[in-house]
């Protein structure tokens, strides 16, 4: 979900020069950072990191010792093993006579996610350009409406949209097409709003110069808007990627056994404390690998997207 952000001051990255005698401001700065604050920060950082580490360690507990021995006990006697990852990914996630291996869901997640990122970003950029630079009747009303739609809980749209996509109408429910359309629709308000923020800040002279030269809207879109908005497109795309990859609700409602992404079987088995419960931690860890790679390698763009005015839920 998204809300307007007040304009941010530029981030001050300049570092104080080291080694010189302490200036007045350096003295004051020193005064501002207390060892207690640093200690508290480190405690929070550790507390926030432990759960993820614990997940990884628990993934390595062999099945017959899961929930009998804690991971530190198993680690102490050298019993940790990567076998679970192999079993979950390639053998089966759950009962190995019926449950498919997780690798199928990994592929489903990829097939669900990539188009669900491309569609709303492209359509959103087109509309963002129109709302920002082409004056037309009802423009600001429609933009405010789209903006307000960001806050509408998607629960409100699920039942009728499922009927529209269902067998009586489009017949796309339960297929990748239906999941893509649903994800695209739910992403559009944020996409339009975020890209509009960016596109409307392109200098007026750039667009007017092209307009005077007789460029049409199509030409302006391809020659000016697309190249200049790539940074915003990148941050929105990362945002949408993480959102879709981690989504459960849209996939559960509009998908089927053929399309369910990683989150679906994991959520189902997580609440079941039966004999296959030991497969849940490695599966959860596998589902995190790709978003964590995306996150850490593209963190800058992701943060930029957040600061550009929004987040989504």
């Amino acid at each position, binding site marked *: 979900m*998204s809300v307007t952000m007040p304009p*941010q*001051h*530029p981030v*001050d990255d300049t570092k104080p020069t080291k080694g010189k005698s302490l200036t*007045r401001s350096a003295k*004051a700065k020193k*005064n*501002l*950072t207390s060892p207690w604050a640093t200690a508290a920060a480190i405690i*929070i*950082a550790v507390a*926030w990191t432990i*759960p*993820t580490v*614990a997940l990884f360690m628990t993934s390595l507990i062999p*099945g017959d010792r*899961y929930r009998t*021995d804690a*991971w530190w006990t198993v680690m102490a006697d050298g019993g940790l093993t990567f076998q679970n990852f192999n079993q979950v990914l390639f*053998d089966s996630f759950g009962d190995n006579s019926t449950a498919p291996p997780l*690798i199928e869901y990994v*592929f489903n997640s990829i*097939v669900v996610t990539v*188009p669900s990122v491309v569609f709303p970003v*492209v*359509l959103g950029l*087109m509309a963002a*350009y*129109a709302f920002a630079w082409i004056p037309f009747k009802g423009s600001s009303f429609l933009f*405010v409406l789209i903006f*307000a739609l960001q*806050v*509408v*809980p998607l*629960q*409100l*749209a699920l*039942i*009728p949209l499922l009927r529209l996509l269902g067998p009586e109408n489009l017949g796309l429910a339960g297929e990748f097409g239906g999941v893509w*359309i649903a994800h695209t629709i739910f992403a559009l308000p944020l996409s339009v709003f975020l890209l509009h923020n960016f596109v409307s800040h392109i200098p007026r002279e750039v667009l007017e110069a092209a307009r005077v030269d007789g460029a*049409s*809207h*199509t030409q302006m*879109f391809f020659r000016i808007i697309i190249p200049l908005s790539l940074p915003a497109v990148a941050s929105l795309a990362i945002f949408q990627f*993480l959102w879709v*990859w*981690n989504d459960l609700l849209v996939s559960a409602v509009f998908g089927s056994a053929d399309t369910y992404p990683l*989150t679906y079987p994991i959520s189902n088995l997580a*609440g079941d404390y039966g004999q*296959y419960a*030991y497969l*849940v*931690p490695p599966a959860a860890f596998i589902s*995190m690998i790709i978003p*964590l790679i995306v996150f*850490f390698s593209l*963190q800058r763009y992701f943060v930029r997207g*957040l*600061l550009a005015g929004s987040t989504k839920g």
Partner: protein
Amino acid sequence: MLSTEHGAVSSPLRTATDLGTDFWASQGQNLLFGMIAIIAFIAIIAIVMFGADLIKGRTRDKVQLVVLVAPVLVLLGVGLVYPALDTTWLSFNEITNEPDPDTGIFTTTMQFVGLDNYRFAFSDPSTLRTILNTFVWMILVPLMSTGFGLAYAVFIDRAKGEKVLKSLVFMPMAISLVGASVIWGNIMYDYNQVGEQTGMLNALRELVGLDPYNFLRDDPWNTFWLIVILVWIQTGFAMVILSAAIKGVPQEMNEAASLDGASAWQRFWRITVPSIRSTIVVVLTTITIMALKVYDIVRTVTQGRDNTDIVANRMYVLSFVEGREALGAALAVILFVFVIPVVIYNVRSLNKVKEAR
């Protein structure tokens, strides 16, 4: 080692090489389908846009404007606005599926029942509890996340290794709610009646001499433990946004106050907080909306057992598992009513930003 788990199954585990051609054929087909969909989508957009460029004269601009905005407006109108109105209408009806007395054929009829579904929602104890729980989520998640995020942002501001410290707390944002639920529900909160405590928190309790505690069964505190999961995720979000705002506060103000003898605590309340007040409000409202809609955590960890259910999960169960769509629709509308103040606030502040330009 795994043979005890699998009992009689003696076949060794399959590995990547055992996946077989069928598997790769069907997965390859899906990937190809996704690629073709993207290429076709971009091709259609390009063809329509350049097609509209061939038009001569004044109509060209108009046609191109329609091409640019129509897809979004149609998709949102058909996929979001109409469904939202339809759901609202459905919430005032009752769906019955009964055999016709003459023919015996099952027919589905919709009957207007006014506020009956809402009356039920607010009088049925378990549904009412669900609504109250949602309210608790809506209050606690934003307050706790913003509180922790703000404290952390202040603590690490200009500290050594700020970037790394930020990444560590921000990282849960990349983890799915399902993944986070597994981490907390199956590992942090795990409780064993007998034997060694394998859950992290209960092991910690034992270490300091406390009795193990069943986090997820103890009503009403179990709702609080579920809320902690979302706070764990959202704190990073609050921290990143607030940290950027704090860096916008002129350093000279802090320095001057410091030289005048103001303590860190005084500077925080008298300088930092007032300077970033609008950002704090934005963070609070954003997280509030998020907290209302999250259903993944409850679905994954407790499935709503032991009075932990929230509206978003109950709505899903009613509509898609139990087939009581009308009541589910009423719950969705209740969820929307909760966010209406935020919608109004947002539109107002958007208009302010527009006027300022």
